């Protein structure tokens, strides 16, 4: 995933970069495709209003789109408030509304490019922000919307975890950029090669999924894309299952046989965890 093109409605992309030049190039390419597809665009970054417009100088039709209402730009603090202050639930409901409004106004959908590094400048903020990204996963899966989230790899914390909770990630530094726990249109997805390097990310993602789980339902996870999982990551699954409401389970569907054997041998009496081949 070298260039920010080829994305469409339904995509939620973690775009890591090394500074403004790289980010602006990616954001402009991404927004340009949305403009061509007839989508409403929103650009968000931690910049004063005029600088936001400067970022988009390379976007064809920028001024006409601003005038017509197809293109919106907002400073980061107008959208998210200060670091750690914003309400993830409120925020994602606003995005849902913006997607609906875009369609009502005659656009094909709603496309967001947001540079969010300022919100993840320490580990705790970054881990908390992963919960918001998981909520965005679900909004995007259910709305005519896509989003590209920019993180400066030199300043953002827990970049691995933030990439892990996005269905798509350009994170060239990660051994398996496809590894993740996130939501798509079918629900929670656990995918890729999971080992010690992403065990911490998996634990954070699962804590968020458990925290917002419906106490009256099992948590269903599609594991069909799982190509490897080690003991450290299996432990994270066991701990997540144990943290669910009594009688509720983390259900791993379409799970590879090796995970079933790993859990049976390692945690024969684990409660709250079910592994299914189908």
């Amino acid at each position, binding site marked *: 995933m070298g260039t920010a093109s080829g994305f469409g409605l339904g995509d939620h992309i973690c775009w890591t970069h090394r500074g403004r030049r790289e980010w602006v190039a990616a954001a402009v390419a991404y927004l340009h495709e949305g403009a061509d597809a007839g989508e409403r665009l929103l650009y968000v970054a931690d910049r004063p209003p005029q600088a936001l417009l400067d970022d988009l100088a390379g976007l064809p039709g920028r001024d006409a789109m601003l005038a017509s209402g197809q293109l919106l730009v907002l400073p980061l603090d107008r959208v998210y408030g200060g670091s750690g202050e914003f309400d993830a639930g409120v925020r994602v409901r606003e995005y849902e509304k913006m997607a609906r409004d875009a369609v009502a106004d005659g656009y094909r959908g709603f496309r967001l490019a947001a540079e969010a590094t300022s919100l993840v400048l320490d580990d705790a903020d970054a881990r908390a922000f992963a919960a918001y990204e998981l909520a965005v996963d679900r909004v995007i899966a259910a709305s005519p919307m896509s989003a590209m989230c920019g993180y400066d790899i030199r300043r953002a914390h827990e970049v691995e975890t933030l990439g892990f909770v996005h269905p798509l990630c350009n994170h060239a530094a990660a*051994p398996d950029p496809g590894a993740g726990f996130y939501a798509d249109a079918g629900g929670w997805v656990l995918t890729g090669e999971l080992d010690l390097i992403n065990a911490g990310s998996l634990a954070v993602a699962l804590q968020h999924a458990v925290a917002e789980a419906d106490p009256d339902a099992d948590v269903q996870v599609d594991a069909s894309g799982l190509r490897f999982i080690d003991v450290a990551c299996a432990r994270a699954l066991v701990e997540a299952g144990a943290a669910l409401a009594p009688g509720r389970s983390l259900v791993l569907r379409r799970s590879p046989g090796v995970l079933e054997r790993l859990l049976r041998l390692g945690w024969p009496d684990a409660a709250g965890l079910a592994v299914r081949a189908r």
Partner: protein
Amino acid sequence: MTAHLALLYATDAEYVEAVGAFVREGVERGEPVLLALPGERLALLRSVLDATAPAVATADMRDLGRNPRRIIPAIRSFLDAHPRRPARFVGEPIWDGRTAAEIHEAEIHEALLNRAFAGAEVTILCPYSTGLADGVLAEAAANHPGLIDASRARPSREYREGGLSPRYHEPLARPPAGAAVIDFGLPMLGDVRRLTARVAGEAGLRDDRLDDYVLAVNEVATNSVRHATPPASLAVWHAGDLIVSQISDGGRLADPLVGRLANGEGGRGRGLPLVDRLCDLVEIRSTDEGTTVQLTVRGG
């Protein structure tokens, strides 16, 4: 008080009489008894077992003890499941046809039994055929505080205190020249898995067994990444139908019982017992110079 006795037997009749007497005595006293013998030796004891069923638990040592590191955890689980004390265990870890490497592991295991169950109220009887090699019988005498020979029990004059076989300090053979080798750190665990899968796949390991072996090698490599100074290295090769991986690092495993006793604090000790379950033979050597773990499975 733990007793750990070697039974030196010459004939099947001696075997049935001595093991039978030990089992019957345990059952009469209401002691839990676990019998882990090679399958054909269990069959010899059928009449004893029929008479004492269901008071005696049995296991085929060719499965349970194929990798001798699994035996102590099995005894531990048995004791946990049968809190009544004292208890009895009969374990025959060495039989004709065991490879030299398996015998060394069984000897390390026998010595560690003296540590693992020191203070636990369990009596352990280990049958040895007097037809085994002299060296094996000499190690049996060194690893057991007591011997039973022609129905007479006596202390072993050759018993070695400390519960550590000198085999534990003998280095493993270096990988052969044709082995596939890779140095690795945390970001390269995927490369470790791919190299293992390639060599094991070439040697005929397939499907679930291939997945399980890759999981085992990954787990040991993960321990190296976690606990030792990088780089660690992996060598993988096959010899006949055996697939062998050797993982080496500069760290030291202080406890020779590592992985054999109950899971460590916070459940972090699950990796090595899992590896022991997944592999046919697990050999660990640890000195001040570093630690080497060798994992072997049969292919095909």
